[in-house]
Structure formats: structure tokens, C-alpha cells
């Protein structure tokens, strides 16, 4: 299983290395949003004195991850429509290796994009006060978040009938941070929007990351965030495996 997974991950990493522009393309829109909020809208948004670059970074990272997992769906769709998924399904190899290779590839490419975005954040005035432990915790939360969204992306990748359809699931994901505390405090939002913003998963993940970056205790928020990630991720994992077994 490990050997098959690493062989297949090697194949996908070659694909990415041969078109490294996708890693940059993924980051362009989130970085544009980052710049727009930081330098255009930022002055009008009252965050209670916090450094606005620090304030924005968690949401921008989540948008980056949501854009990036769309490419995992596209890669799986491409493999499936070309018959590669079927070919691998008739070979004497580990069943789960095929999907895990896509998931690991997603983790690696997300790590590269995240480093790029954090680098730009530093240039824009990101000043974290996180301890090593806080950084590790933030890394852990981001990794689990990526893992959950990647397993979600496997489902449309396997079932979509068109390229556009495979990537479409990511649009609402990319939009979700705008209806959270990622860009502005939820207190400024009207009733129902505020209720939604305060109770959707992105807010708890954003608040957790914000606290960790600023070296504040994350409190209960981290447990709410982890519960959301585990719930959504676990459900998507089970559904993805089921879809795969039905297809292959």
C-alpha cells in the first residue's frame, strides 16, 4: 500500500513539477483579494485595533486551500475520463493507494502555495507573535483543514461529467470566508447574516488561526474548529471511498 501510494504520488508530483504555473495560478486570486482588502477596503473596516494583515491572513489561507483543492478534483476527473482510474482499478495494487496519491499530492502542493502566501503576508506587514508550539498547532489545523477539503474534492472528481462540473464545488467554499469573521468582525453584520457567520465552520477555523498567529490562547474555538473539520472531513472520506468503490 505504501509503495503503491508513493509510486502513484510520484507520478502526480511529476505532473505538477511540469506545470508549476498551476501552483502560482492558485495563489493569484487569494493574493489579489488579500491586497484589495488590506489596501483598499482595510481602512474602512474596524477590527478593534488589530494589525489588519494579521487579521486577514487566516481567511486568505483558507481561500487559497479551497482554490487549490479544485485542482485535485480536476486531476481526478482527468484520470477518470481518460480511463487511467479504470486501468489502475484493474491492476493488482492497493485499492486505497489511488486516492491517497491524489490526497498526498494535494497536501504537498498546498504546502508550497501556503509558504508563498505567508511570504507575501510578511511583505505586507504580517507580524505574528506565535511561539513554536502555536506555529505547530496552526500548521496542524491547516493540514487537517486541507485534508478534509481534499477528501471532499475527490467526490466531484470521480462523479463529474464535465471539467467545469468537477471544479464547481469549490466556488461556494471560496465564498464561505466572506460570510465569516475572515474580513470583518461579525458584530458589524445584520442579524441573520451574523447568525450564519458566527455558526459556520470557517469562523471557528479563522478565529483559531488568528489566535495562534498572535500568540493568544485559542480557547474553545480550537475545539469547535477541530470538531467541524473532523466531522466534515470524516463524512467526505467515507463518501469518497464509497463513490470510488461504486465506480471502480
Amino acid at each position, binding site marked *: 500500500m505504501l509503495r*503503491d501510494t508513493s509510486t502513484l504520488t510520484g*507520478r502526480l508530483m*511529476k505532473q505538477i513539477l511540469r506545470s508549476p504555473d498551476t501552483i502560482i495560478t492558485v495563489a493569484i486570486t487569494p493574493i489579489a483579494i488579500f491586497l484589495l482588502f488590506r489596501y483598499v477596503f482595510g481602512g474602512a473596516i474596524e477590527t478593534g485595533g488589530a494589525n489588519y494583515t494579521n487579521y486577514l491572513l487566516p481567511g486568505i489561507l483558507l481561500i487559497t486551500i479551497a482554490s487549490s483543492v479544485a485542482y485535485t478534483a480536476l486531476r481526478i476527473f482527468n484520470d477518470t475520463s481518460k*480511463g*487511467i482510474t*479504470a486501468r489502475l482499478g*484493474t491492476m493488482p*495494487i492497493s485499492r486505497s493507494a489511488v486516492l491517497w496519491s491524489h490526497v498526498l499530492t494535494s497536501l504537498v502542493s498546498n504546502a508550497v502555495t501556503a509558504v508563498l502566501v505567508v511570504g507575501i503576508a510578511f511583505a505586507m506587514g504580517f507580524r505574528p507573535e506565535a511561539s513554536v508550539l502555536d506555529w505547530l498547532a496552526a500548521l496542524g489545523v491547516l493540514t487537517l483543514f486541507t485534508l478534509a477539503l481534499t477528501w471532499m474534492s475527490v467526490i466531484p472528481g470521480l462523479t463529474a461529467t464535465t471539467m467545469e462540473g468537477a471544479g464547481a464545488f469549490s466556488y461556494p467554499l471560496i465564498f464561505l470566508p466572506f460570510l465569516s469573521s475572515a474580513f470583518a468582525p461579525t458584530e458589524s453584520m445584520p442579524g441573520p447574516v451574523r447568525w450564519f457567520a458566527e455558526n459556520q465552520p470557517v469562523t471557528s477555523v479563522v478565529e483559531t488561526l488568528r489566535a495562534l498567529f498572535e500568540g493568544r490562547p485559542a480557547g474553545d474555538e480550537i475545539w469547535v474548529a477541530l470538531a467541524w473539520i473532523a466531522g466534515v472531513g470524516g463524512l467526505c472520506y467515507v463518501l469518497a471511498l464509497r463513490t470510488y468503490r461504486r465506480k471502480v
Partner: protein
Amino acid sequence: MPSPASAPAIDVVGLRKSFGDNEVLKGVTFDVGRGEIFALLGSNGAGKTTTVNICSTLLRPDAGTASLSGHDVVARPEEVRRAISLTGQFAAVDEVLTGRENLELIARLRRVPGPRTVATGLLAQFGLTDAADRRAATYSGGMKRRLDIAMSLVGSPEIIFLDEPTTGLDPEARIEVWRTVKGLASSGTTILLTTQYLEEAEQLADRIAILHGGTIIANGTLSELKTMFPPAKVEYVEKQPTLEEIFLAIIGTKEAN
């Protein structure tokens, strides 16, 4: 015909499969002896791919059994996968990788010792040596198909499925692929190929089965099929009937009933 002592390479009995209320296979039965080239002939939508997918463990039958090299596809898919190799209806090559990398990938996954040497040998056998280090995206349709078939040969599986190996290829590429398949015959590999082209079945296969309306309506060697040609028409036919005429005649009689 296989000797009674050894199990046939492929043994399909009473296979049924529906998609919703579309009953595609209504009891398909045939067997293929070891080393035989067997053509499953049928028009578009006849259920050829469905049959191949069941035999290659991708799809579960609703009823009936399929044994590959003596292993049941439902009960022992792992053993079946070790014995078979599928070349699907569309060339399943990774276009970002080179021809060589595609072959080495399959060799690694099949745990074949010396992936590089295996790839070099197959590239030469399939006339792809010059293109070995180019990305498969730059290959012509015929070259992709040849690479695809070469990938199926890695590790010398006993049974190879070729699902419509020449559909969508230009006539020249089709002849290239035919030459390739004929070359395989001598190696003792069992081949089940599907085709919509009567001429293709005639060219390549030892035995031909016609899949129509969910069942096998005829099964035999070319000369056996020719004797099934209705005698009523023999009166004005001095030349040998072509397979096309046999096919139309058999379908015509079935549908008249």
C-alpha cells in the same frame, strides 16, 4: 478449444446486467481458450464495454458468473487482477509523462523487476523508441494506442482485454494496431477484443461472437459463422459471403422472429 484438464482462460456464464431499467446483458455466455484471440462483435451500445468491465472486475454482474483463469471475478478479484490487463476504450496513458515513464510506472506498480529494461524492450517492440522520451501528449492517436497496449503487456499478464482498440483511429493507424495485435497472438497471450468492425474481427480473431440484443447470437470461427448464412441466399451468391453479410443475415433472422 481448451483441453478439458485446464480451465478456459475466460469462462462467462449467464451474465446479466441492467442500468436502471435498461437491460443491457440478458444472459451472456461464452468461453475463450488459452492463447486464443476472441472477438466480441457488436454495434455501438450492444454491451461490449459492460461485458469487458465485468470481466475486468470494474463492474459487478447482476447475475451469472465470470471466471478468469479459473478465478471468479466477484469472489476473487485480487487473483483476477493479477491475471489480466485492460486496455480500455480510450487510450489510458498519462499525457504529461513520457512514453517511457508511463511504461515504468506500470512496471513499478506490477512489481516487475527492472522497470527500465522492460520499458526499453516494449518501446522497441512497439516502434516507439524514437518517441520514448517525449511526453505522450505529443503522440499521434495511433502512437498513444500502441503505448496503451504496450502498458497492458508490462508484466506479461495471461489475459488481455482490448476494448475497441482501433475506434477513432485513421486507417493507417488501424493497420499499425492490427499488426501489433497479430504479433501478440504468437506470444501465447489470451486476447479478448471488442469491435464494431466486422473486418477487424475477421482480420484478428480465431473466434468471433456476435453480441446483439443482450445475448450472444452467434459464436464460432469465421468458417463456422459462414455456414450459418441462410441457404435461401446461397442461390445467387457464388463468392464467399463477407462477415458483414453474415452479421446482417443473422440479425435479420433474429429480429424477424
